[in-house]
């Protein structure tokens, strides 16, 4: 066994950490306050090549493994969940379908500029009445002689207001539920495709969440990513990676909040001594640290399994569930350590507290993940470690 990062991974962490400290951290507060897409920052991070982290070097990518991608997610989240949501969307869900199924021309037009940070990509599956239950989507794709006609509404679409292209889940056969879903590439400016209302939200501000409207939106036959009816399977191919990535976001947030709590506990005095010297505060610090370390092990273990090709859905579900719950636990405790200052806008504790919630839903709610873990475990009647 060896729990240490390789030299390359270690070097990568240091490099990312420095870059994030220099570029993202100083803007974190203003991203949260203004809730606007940080375009300059987005470009700057693109020029460093991070959006291509998962893609081959010949496309301008880094060809990195899942452990390194998780490191990137974690380091970004330490500074700003809002920006981390934008950047990870670009690295993974927003671009992956084009990478796997796009024509050369589509890659030229969308993927390569996206890797450079010149175009913004996003993915759209959630609808007003369906989130974790993907089989329930109502957006229709009807085949005609020119390709497909898309009609429907998508909600909670990250970067929906600024995205240059969207990978949209739509069904060609609603009665088949999951078996009817396909993904379609729709570019900005396509007639019938428009941006609807913005969802004002308390977490992950800066990453706008929008409604997207498809009103008899005609797209070409090549817009279908892969084959009809295979969308759910394609999504499943990256679902575990998405969950590990979100677990990484949880870790990053938990660590920043933890450090803020430590600082405050050392500096704030009550009854003549720092509050960190009281047992009840010590207890919080110990609980937080143990949980963060456990979450870290679950997360990187899942990433390691992914890199070895032996990941099952369960490990990713466990990592996402435990790491995001840990983040929510830590931000709660850190806000308590801050006392009333835990709700004052001048300290980041309240931002951490709000941001924690964002991680609970995307990639599957904790409730859904628990049923996935349990169902998998119940298949065999033994305790197994992969």
């Amino acid at each position, binding site marked *: 066994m060896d729990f240490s990062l390789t030299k390359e991974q270690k070097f990568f962490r240091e490099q990312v950490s420095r870059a994030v400290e220099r570029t993202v951290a100083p803007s974190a507060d203003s991203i949260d306050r203004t809730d606007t897409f940080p375009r300059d920052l987005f470009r700057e991070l693109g020029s460093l090549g991070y959006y291509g982290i998962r893609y081959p070097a010949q496309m301008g990518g880094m060809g990195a493994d899942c452990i390194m991608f998780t490191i990137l997610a974690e380091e970004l989240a330490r500074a700003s969940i809002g920006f981390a949501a934008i950047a990870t969307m670009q690295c993974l869900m927003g671009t992956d379908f084009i990478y796997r199924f796009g024509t050369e021309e589509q890659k030229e037009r969308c993927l390569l500029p996206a890797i450079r940070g010149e175009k913004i990509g996003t993915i759209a599956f959630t609808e007003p009445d369906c989130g974790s239950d993907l089989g329930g989507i109502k957006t229709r794709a009807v085949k005609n002689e020119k390709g497909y006609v898309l009609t429907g509404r998508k909600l909670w679409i990250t970067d929906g207001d600024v995205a240059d292209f969207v990978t949209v889940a739509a069904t060609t056969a609603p009665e088949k539920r999951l078996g009817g879903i396909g993904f379609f590439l729709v570019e900005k400016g396509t007639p019938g495709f428009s941006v609807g209302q913005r969802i004002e939200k308390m977490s992950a501000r800066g990453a706008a969440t929008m409604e997207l409207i498809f009103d008899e939106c005609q797209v070409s036959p090549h817009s279908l990513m892969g084959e009809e009816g295979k969308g759910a399977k394609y999504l499943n191919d990256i679902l575990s990676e998405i969950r590990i990535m979100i677990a990484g976001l949880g870790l990053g947030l938990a660590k920043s909040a933890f450090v803020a709590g430590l600082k405050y506990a050392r500096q704030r005095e*009550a009854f003549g001594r720092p509050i960190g010297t009281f047992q009840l505060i010590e207890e919080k610090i110990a609980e937080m640290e143990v949980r963060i370390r456990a979450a870290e092990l679950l997360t990187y273990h899942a990433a390691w399994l992914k890199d070895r090709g032996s990941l099952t859905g369960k490990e990713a579900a466990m990592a996402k569930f435990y790491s995001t719950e840990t983040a929510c636990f830590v931000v709660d405790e850190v806000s308590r350590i801050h006392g009333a200052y835990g709700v004052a806008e001048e300290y980041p504790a309240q931002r951490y507290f709000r941001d924690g919630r964002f991680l609970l839903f995307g990639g599957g709610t904790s409730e859904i993940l628990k049923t996935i873990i349990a169902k998998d475990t119940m298949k065999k009647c033994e305790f197994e470690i992969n």
Partner: protein
Amino acid sequence: MDFAFTEEQQFFKKIITDTVDRMVVPKAREIDEKDEFPWELWKDFTKLGYLGLRYPEEIGGMNADPVTAMIFYEQIARGSVGFAQSVIMNILMGTYFVYRFGSQAIRERCLFPAMKGEKVATMCFTEDQSGSDLSATRTTAVKDGSEWVINGTKMWITNGPVADFATVLATTDLSLGAKGLNFFLVEKGTPGFSPGQVLDKLGCRGTVTGELVFDNVRIPEENLLGAELNKGIEYLGEILDEVRVMTGAMAMGIAQAAYDEGLEYARKRIAFGKPIGNYQLIRAKFADMATEMEASRLLIYSAAWKMKERLPSRIEAAMAKMFATETCCKVVDEVTRIWGANAFANEYNPQRHFRDARFLLYGGGTHEILKDFMGRMLIGK
């Protein structure tokens, strides 16, 4: 034993519930978004006489017992905790010492208008470096002839930026710690008394919270609110239990509002072909929430009953405060989970409840402090 409200209390509950539904609930979102003192609602609501809730009928009050008062605190917070805090400040902490120790002239100038909503009251304990630890108070009161001179800065003052008068905690002798503390009345317009920065905060928005600055503020002798010098902490003890249980009651108000939202959503939101309320994991959340809310209310109302009967209630009040506000935080947490991503869309209420709940963890003593206190009392020195 008898766990039922009296007929009068039941009637009161119905009236206040309807009033809050009609006047406060429709304004809650706007109050939160604007984060300004809601003058219009304040004027309409205070006409109804509730600000005199706890005071005797002969001075225009409602003479409500502690159980009835808790019903009020719970309902008003169910409507809007931002508004509730401003109202309750006038009802309880902001006016108590004026009522208890103020001269007739002071009562006429401050208490009676405050009971009618014509003046806004506040109380100031907290400072930058003293919260739960009152003995660290650095604001000083020095006697100079027939006047007191107050110097210091207070933080986190509810209604501070709009208050017409403030009951201020200050020490006459820094070396005495908690035994040197007294309450003083300082009125708006007194030279040297001014509002400082206003706090921008996560929850309980609409209650304006800010800094108050006392720079050589000279007040007459009679503004010392206390029969004897340096007994401030003892006098504070007279309302401490009520303040704590009141905080618990407000927590139940928020919890109820959130719970109701959760219930509606669980019934109508469909996943995998059936309402999410049909799934065991969601049902379990309601079972847990309802059980803990029921237990919280029993702690709150039994502590209030003890206060009414003048039985010892210090530990019970701390228990009620801690348990009810923790339950509230848990309920708002679970309700945001039930609502999924919609829980953090600002167009719906769960995110407001989620933010509001946090504020109640601190006022009346953090739970770390309360646990330490309770443990000390239970174990004995």
